[in-house]
């Protein structure tokens, strides 16, 4: 600890921190323009200068470390004069166009000028006269307003790991620009917009929408991935106009990705439902709530009477709150009397959960977003965490910067592979083989505590099962060289501590339950706790949906899961789908459509007329996440409140209210009046699962490929998320659609030549299950023999090709592609 005096106040702070930090920690404000706690000290703006006793020079407090006995003054007449001059110099170049600048009112430069500035400057110099660069889809660069603090450049390369911007040139003409002055092509996270102390970087969708002082800001939780970041939504006259992150706010501590920042406008999509719809003679007819609810309750009663309670099923949703999902469960259990419930988690989080239950005996698995920090070795397995969970990904990058060794095994170049210390380029879907191979090496080299581990249940079988995974064989399966396999296994085994992370979700087909089991084996083998394994739940409320009991194994046995409900015709007669679009987002959708069409009653409750809703008998309009109160549970298992920020359009209602009203129509009083009532019920009914356990079991898993490519279908189709989208909901966002608006097929240059496909041409893709047409993108980020696409876009229909993997193995699909002429 170091003791020093700041403005007459004796403070004691950690050694090695800067004067600015020490002051901030003690509630003393020092003006600054180029400092951000996420970035390394830079010392560009010189506004944070302070006086130190016995020091003739002024010190830049943001880059001077504290020393014992320092006597610091942060606000003296001399300093005010210096700061005033610095500002005067900044304002030579900065145009005073605040009346037409969106930043006005919340502009750092404006605030500091207001505090220190004087009305006229002594210096005259020509201002920059560059027109604003409005070519990019979401971010606008106005070089004239830039004071060259370099924050945007640094946050982009240091923190986001992207480096799309640079300070180009030297001296006065320096501008912030992408290389060669090209159009800004980046992650569109918009972190540069938040961090810019002036109006040089602005959000295009928000341009000229509202003055900062007219905006009402309210915090809520992001509706996209499982990170559960806090969004600060700015509204005016009942419309959400923008979303931003505030420093140190929420789980994300002010970081946001492009989805959270720009994607909120999906609530204003054109096809939002405003009234209930009933299908009459094949076409939808608008109906009142009474008609719709009566129609549903009559049909349900008839179906229950004719076929029994078990002929009704329901699908819940990670997009809906805990309250909504809880009410769905309550409706199903106490009004219908059926336990046939499942959600999209069946393709992701459920698999993880099942595997971890088998290995560690835990019913719940939460991650810790901070867990990468301080780890010796971080091992990422075929997962693009910077895309699926961008803010968790930032922590991985930060850990790497701070000295962790980042090992990434993947089949595709990603941001994480670019930043990795070791990049194991593997064949898609071979994680299990890779893990087994590494464990075999660890076993053979004795890099584990045999005494403890050999007592673990299932060890003997496990050890025998690995016999065939010799480095030579595994190298052939995975495409990773033997030396790399051995050195990686050794590095991971010898590390002081480690984190192994991967993702499993419906949108990816390269990993399954087996992958999680194999990863668990590795963790147990190395004598680590379950905390070493970080597998985030995929979406905003996947964790909560699961917790609320929207899963087949929550109550009775012998209930129907999603595979029965959607892939077996005649297993159900009525299906109630809340906030989910299986036709777009679940694999093998032709089969799903066949099942749904065979139902006697399909009720879809959603915010928009989705592909699934188009098949329904009754469609009910629900409120979106910004139009209702409730709670989400993020991948960390932390419950966070979301708020009603704007009014719901038309007659749409929160999902839980619809279900309560429907219960009343069915003649069951379930005694819930308001949202607080639901919360209380949840508290009473849902108990917290234990988070620690001593159970350790080895589960033998053997590698089995998905669908192997053959003569007829020579390529492997890999599906993954793209950065700008999350599920299919975000594709309704106009802002995000400006960046990526359609599905495309990424194909390696060699394959493109082989199959006669040129960049941007249309290709026909056929698997054993269906055919789709997509635009091709020729790239070197995918390996030969594989093609890559994402399944966010309903009109892309990628799920016509895929199949659900039930047995735990990864589910890559074999496909053939043909160029489409004309």
């Amino acid at each position, binding site marked *: 600890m170091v003791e020093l005096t700041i403005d007459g106040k004796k403070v004691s702070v950690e050694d090695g921190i800067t004067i600015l930090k020490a002051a901030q920690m003690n509630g003393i404000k020092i003006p600054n323009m180029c400092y951000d706690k996420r970035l390394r000290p830079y010392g560009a703006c010189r506004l944070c200068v302070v006086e130190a006793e016995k020091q003739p020079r002024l010190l830049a407090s943001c880059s001077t470390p504290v020393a014992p006995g320092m006597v610091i003054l942060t606000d003296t007449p001399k300093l005010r004069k210096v700061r005033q001059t610095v500002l005067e110099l900044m304002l030579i170049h900065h145009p005073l166009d605040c009346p037409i600048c969106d930043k006005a009112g919340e502009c750092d430069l404006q605030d500091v000028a207001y505090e220190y500035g004087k009305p006229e400057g002594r210096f005259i110099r020509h201002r920059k006269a560059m027109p604003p660069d409005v070519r990019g889809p979401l971010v606008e660069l106005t070089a004239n307003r830039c004071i060259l603090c370099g924050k945007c450049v640094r946050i*982009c*390369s240091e923190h986001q790991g*992207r*480096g*799309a*911007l*640079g300070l180009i040139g030297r001296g006065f003409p320096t501008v912030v620009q*992408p*290389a060669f002055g090209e159009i800004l092509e980046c992650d569109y996270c918009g972190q540069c917009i938040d961090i810019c102390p002036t109006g040089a970087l602005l959000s295009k969708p928000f341009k000229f929408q509202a003055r900062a002082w007219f905006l009402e800001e309210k915090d809520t939780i992001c509706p996209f991935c499982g990170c559960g970041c806090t969004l600060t939504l700015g509204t005016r006259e009942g419309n959400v106009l923008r979303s931003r992150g505030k420093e140190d706010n929420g789980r994300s501590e002010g970081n946001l990705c492009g989805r959270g920042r720009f994607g909120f406008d999906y609530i204003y999509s054109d096809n939002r439902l405003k009234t209930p719809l009933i299908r009459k003679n094949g076409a939808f007819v608008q109906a009142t709530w009474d008609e719709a609810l009566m129609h549903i309750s009559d049909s349900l009663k008839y179906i229950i009477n004719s076929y029994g309670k078990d002929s009704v099923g329901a699908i819940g949703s990670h997009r809906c709150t805990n309250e909504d999902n809880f009410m769905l469960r309550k409706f199903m259990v106490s009004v219908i009397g059926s336990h046939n419930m499942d959600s999209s988690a069946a393709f992701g989080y459920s698999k993880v959960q099942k595997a971890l239950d088998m290995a560690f005996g835990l019913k719940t698995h939460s991650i810790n977003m901070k867990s990468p920090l301080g780890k010796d070795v971080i091992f990422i397995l075929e997962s693009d965490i910077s895309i699926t969970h961008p803010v968790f990904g930032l922590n991985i990058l930060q850990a790497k910067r701070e000295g962790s060794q980042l090992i990434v095994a993947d089949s595709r170049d990603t941001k994480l592979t670019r930043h990795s210390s070791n990049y194991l380029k593997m064949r898609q879907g071979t994680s299990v083989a890779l893990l087994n191979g590494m464990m075999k090496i660890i076993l053979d080299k004795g890099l584990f505590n045999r005494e403890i581990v050999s007592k673990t249940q299932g060890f003997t079988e496990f050890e025998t099962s690995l016999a065939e995974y010799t480095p030579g064989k595994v190298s052939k399966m995975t495409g990773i060289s033997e030396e790399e396999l051995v050195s990686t296994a050794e590095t991971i085994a010898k590390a002081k501590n480690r984190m192994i992370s991967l993702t499993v979700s419906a949108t990816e087909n390269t990993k399954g339950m087996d992958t999680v089991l194999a990863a668990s084996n590795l963790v147990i083998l190395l004598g680590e706790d379950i905390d070493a394994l970080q597998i985030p739940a995929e979406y905003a409320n996947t964790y909560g949906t699961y917790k609320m009991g929207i899963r087949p194994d929550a109550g009775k046995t012998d209930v129907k899961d999603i595979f029965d409900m959607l892939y077996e015709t005649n297993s159900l007669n009525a299906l109630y789908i809340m906030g989910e679009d299986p036709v777009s987002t679940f694999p093998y959708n032709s089969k799903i459509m066949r099942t749904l069409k065979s139902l006697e009653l399909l009720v879809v409750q959603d915010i928009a007329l989705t592909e699934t809703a188009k098949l329904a008998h009754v469609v009910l309009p629900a409120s979106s996440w910004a139009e209702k109160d409730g709670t989400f549970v993020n991948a960390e298992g932390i419950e966070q409140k979301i708020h009603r920020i704007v009014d719901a359009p038309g007659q749409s209602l929160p999902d839980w209210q619809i279900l309560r009203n429907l219960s009343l129509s069915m003649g069951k009083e379930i005694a819930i009046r308001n949202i607080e009532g639901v919360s209380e019920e949840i508290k009473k009914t849902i108990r917290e699962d234990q988070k620690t356990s001593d159970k350790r079991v080895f589960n033998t898993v053997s590698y089995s490929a998905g669908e192997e490519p053959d003569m007829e279908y020579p390529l492997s189709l890999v599906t993954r998320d793209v950065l700008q989208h999350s599920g299919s909901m975000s594709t309704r966002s106009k802002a995000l659609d400006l960046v990526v608006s359609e599905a495309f097929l990424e194909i390696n240059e060699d394959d493109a030549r082989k199959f006669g496909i040129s960049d941007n041409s249309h290709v026909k893709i056929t698997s054993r299950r269906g055919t789709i047409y997509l635009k091709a993108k020729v790239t070197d980020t995918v390996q030969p023999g594989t093609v890559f696409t994402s399944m966010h876009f309903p009109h892309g229909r990628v799920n016509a090709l895929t199949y659900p993997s039930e047995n735990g193995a990864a589910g890559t699909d074999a496909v053939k592609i043909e160029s489409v002429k004309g």
Partner: protein
Amino acid sequence: MRVEDLDVNEMIGDVGKIICEHDRKKGVLIHAFQKIQQDYGYLPGEVLMTLSKKLSLPLAEIYSVASFYKQFHFSPRGKKVVRVCMGTACHVRGAKNVLNALEDEFGIKQGETTDDLAMTLETVGCVGCCGLAPVATINEDVVGDIGKKKLELLVKAIKEEEK
């Protein structure tokens, strides 16, 4: 030099042992630029792109470093590089006229290159022979005391050497 063959550790030498990976990569940038420029005469975009992939450094960062130095160029250079001195002595003795005359003659502005890549016209701060002001250089050759006649000779010299 092929960018693909670039060896960061070899290029940076012993200093590399005490600095981090990122700084090591950044440290070799200027050497790499110089070598590329030696081979190509300028820094072609696609070569910088390859360098960016090879070093895993963002292109913007690479471009930012390169754009800081006047010695690096991003478009092809002429066979003859003509530099007109704009230093104080030359300025006083009419360097501006020399520059204007050359600009008019070849139809390019300072900093530009003729379409046939024969000549690049540039200005410099001082060549170091103020006694001869106004001065221009054609590649390594100095032409001093440029009056009206000398100017004609200068133009001729530039054009002659084109052939």
